[in-house]
């Protein structure tokens, strides 16, 4: 027994450190929740601001988020620090933001999964559980085929797929492009198997570029290199309008279908963040989202700019929630 006393001591020390770390965090939470800042003229920011990206570095949310931060940095005196918190299509980050201190020093960018997570039951929170600051960009779902495939436009592809079973690659179940794929199959009334790859649309895009499947559904940003290098051909985008980087490709609506599915990125703060602080942040990030350099950067990559204020963001996602609920129900996902 004596032999193990060292082990027990060691584990106790480590456990205490762990408790201390978590304990400190939660104590501060309680204090700030009970007494939100009373100051009138806010001195904000007084220290660096954490900007959480709940996805892996190098992905779509990461690249766009970094472009926004670069533009916003000019408008704030303190540095904005980017922290990647990947996990469960952004759900881990959302959960952590829900528990984070509401002082404006912790922000999180997200995607349309902010409404789908609650609908699918991943986490019990949606956009009403946070303070939206702005919405700063969107990307439409889009469908592409390998370059050597015979289909020149979306009509030809759908005609073929009505008679023959096709295979469409896309992101993991619960992810926005998976939802888009199911909705597309339903809308077009085609016969298709869905081939799923975890971790965003990137792997599915490679699979299609190698000709292992008939088509891929992802964002133009994720397909950009393969489209430009001629391994993939874009057939249609599922957005409200054409994408600037591929302005010759028609929308799905133009082809006569009623489906618009995008991933739209809001910037969120924890619920109860003081109004004055939110105003400072709104001004800084609104100016950033209007920055011509930011707009050009994201357009060049195949993404689209969009600017909505806090109330508009709530309204937008209220509408989006209904749309998603309908799509998920119709395609039997909930």
């Amino acid at each position, binding site marked *: 027994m004596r032999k*193990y006393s*060292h*082990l027990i001591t*060691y*584990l106790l020390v*480590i*456990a205490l*450190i*762990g408790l201390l*770390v*978590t304990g400190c965090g939660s104590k501060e939470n309680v204090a700030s929740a009970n007494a939100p800042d009373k100051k009138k003229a806010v001195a904000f920011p007084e220290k660096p601001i954490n900007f959480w990206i709940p996805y*892996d*570095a*190098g*992905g779509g949310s*990461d*690249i766009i988020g*970094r472009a926004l931060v*670069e533009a916003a940095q000019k408008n704030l005196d303190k540095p904005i620090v*980017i*922290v*990647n*918190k990947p*996990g*469960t299509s952004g*759900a*881990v980050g959302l*959960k*952590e933001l829900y528990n984070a201190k509401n002082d404006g020093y912790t922000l999180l960018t997200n995607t349309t999964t902010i409404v789908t997570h609650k609908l699918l039951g*991943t*986490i019990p929170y949606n956009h009403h559980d946070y303070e939206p600051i702005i919405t700063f960009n969107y990307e439409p779902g889009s469908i592409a085929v390998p370059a050597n495939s015979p289909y020149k436009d979306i009509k030809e592809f759908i005609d073929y797929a009505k008679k023959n079973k096709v*295979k469409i690659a896309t992101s*993991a*179940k*619960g992810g926005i492009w998976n939802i888009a794929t199911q909705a597309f199959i339903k809308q077009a009334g085609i016969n298709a*198997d869905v*081939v*799923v*790859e*975890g971790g965003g649309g*990137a*792997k599915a895009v*490679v*699979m299609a*570029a*190698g*000709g*292992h*499947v008939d088509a891929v559904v992802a964002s133009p940003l994720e397909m*950009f*290199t*393969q489209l*430009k*290098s*001629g*391994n993939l051909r874009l057939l249609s985008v599922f957005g409200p309008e054409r994408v600037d980087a591929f302005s010759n490709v028609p929308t799905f609506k133009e082809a006569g279908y009623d489906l618009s599915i995008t991933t739209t990125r809001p910037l969120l703060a924890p619920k109860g963040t003081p109004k004055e602080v939110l105003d400072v942040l709104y001004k800084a990030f609104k100016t950033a989202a209007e920055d011509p350099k930011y707009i050009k*950067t994201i357009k*060049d*990559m195949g993404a689209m700019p969009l600017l909505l204020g806090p109330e508009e963001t709530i309204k937008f996602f209220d509408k989006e929630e209904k749309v998603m609920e309908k799509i998920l129900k119709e395609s039997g*996902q909930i």
Partner: protein
Amino acid sequence: MNGLEGILNGFSQALTLVNLIACFVGVLLGTIIGVLPGLGPTATMSLLLPITLNFNEPVTGLIMLAGIWYGAQYGGSTTSILVNIPGEAASVMTCIDGNQMAKKGRAGAALSIAALASFIAGTVGIIGLQFFAPPLAKAALSFGPPEYLCLMILAFTLLTNLTGSSPTKGLLMAFVGFFLGTIGTDSQTGMNRFTLGSADLMGGIDFLPIAMGLFGIAEIISVLIDKESNQQLEKVRFKDLFPNKEELKRSSKPMFRGSILGFFIGLIPGPGPTISTFISYSLEKRLSKIKDQFGKGAVEGVAGPEAANNSAVTGSLVPLLALGIPFAPPAALLLAGMRMQNIEAGPMLFQQFPNVFWGIVASMYLGNIMLLILNLPLVGFFAKIASIKPMFLMPVVSILCLIGVYSVRNNIFDIWIMLLAGIIGFFLRRKNYPVAPLILALVLGPTTESAFRNSLTILNGNLSSLFERPIAAVLLAVTIIYLIATVGRKYIKLKKLNTAVSK
């Protein structure tokens, strides 16, 4: 621009003062973060990304980013050898023999061999990248889920051969790893598997907390409990810092084999560096005449895998630059760095931005030399660490583990996983259960499962069509030959033994 003209032009760029400094800063940062367990190139590259956008020439920033990435591969083995903690999945194999070498007072030799292997592999990799990038890039695209599935079948067949003492125990551990890999949200159906309603578990269990727990924390616990083992640390003399002639001779072939193997595996999607390390390890074990030395400090077990993981990283630059396909987060960041400067990776890179391609290639030759010069003197310093008394060393190592694990996903949950894995790892070690198969299965399990299910969809549920795809068929054939050879050899041995006994 042809090859010679290209590379000369590349050197003329890489040798400018600002680019040389960028390259040096990159590889230096890479070495430092590579040594610290858990801290990987991804975080550092993303921190520096905004800075790299501000240079006059886009290539300067890219040289720096690339330097961090391949520089980190040099340092990765340090903690594996010194304190038995793999800082990344690709360093797991190095723990097995590297740490045994350290325990025998050969830490310096192991570190030197690792640095040398990294240098040779890095250089072999760049030669491959320079001459064969465009044709080889197509190979990356030809790997669909069926081909990947067959590669994984081969990999798992080799896995059973990895840890000597008891194949049954190794297999058992691999199954546990496989099981841990199923935890989380299933990407095909969206069902939660074994998540107990926790949003943290839905994201799956990351390999790093498990690896650092099973190796690192378990090591610390054993040091605390088995006091006798503390005393064995031998004083490191100066001449022990460098490998002796025999060690050099024994490791030269594994280095070259590992380099070439790693480069080709790097071309394929998926965790290439990791796969390449244990394929190399099991290849060396099979070819070796002293198989029983493996696991007890065989220098081949350090040289092969360390070369393989380094050239796999260089190999993965081929699909990255020639196709714009990133297989790993650091690759994705390099791609992001290019995109933000409006340089599009892909087939057009060689025509539109020859300066960028050749500049990076040339800087990598220089960077590898810098890394060798940087790392060899560090060997002495690091080898001293191995002789620090555990009562001082272990607390520091504990803290490094805590920080390293937290920094990967910035999630406290991972720390608890690491501590739990540490306690379990301690008891596994007592009972001689090898933990490397568990970690490798955890890394490869999810990709294997997804390749299997996607293959079924693509092949319309008919797995026998695997043989109709050339690459898949070759891989399966190799697996079958390997199995027959292994079983056959055992059979012959048994027969010989029987006849000997009966006589």
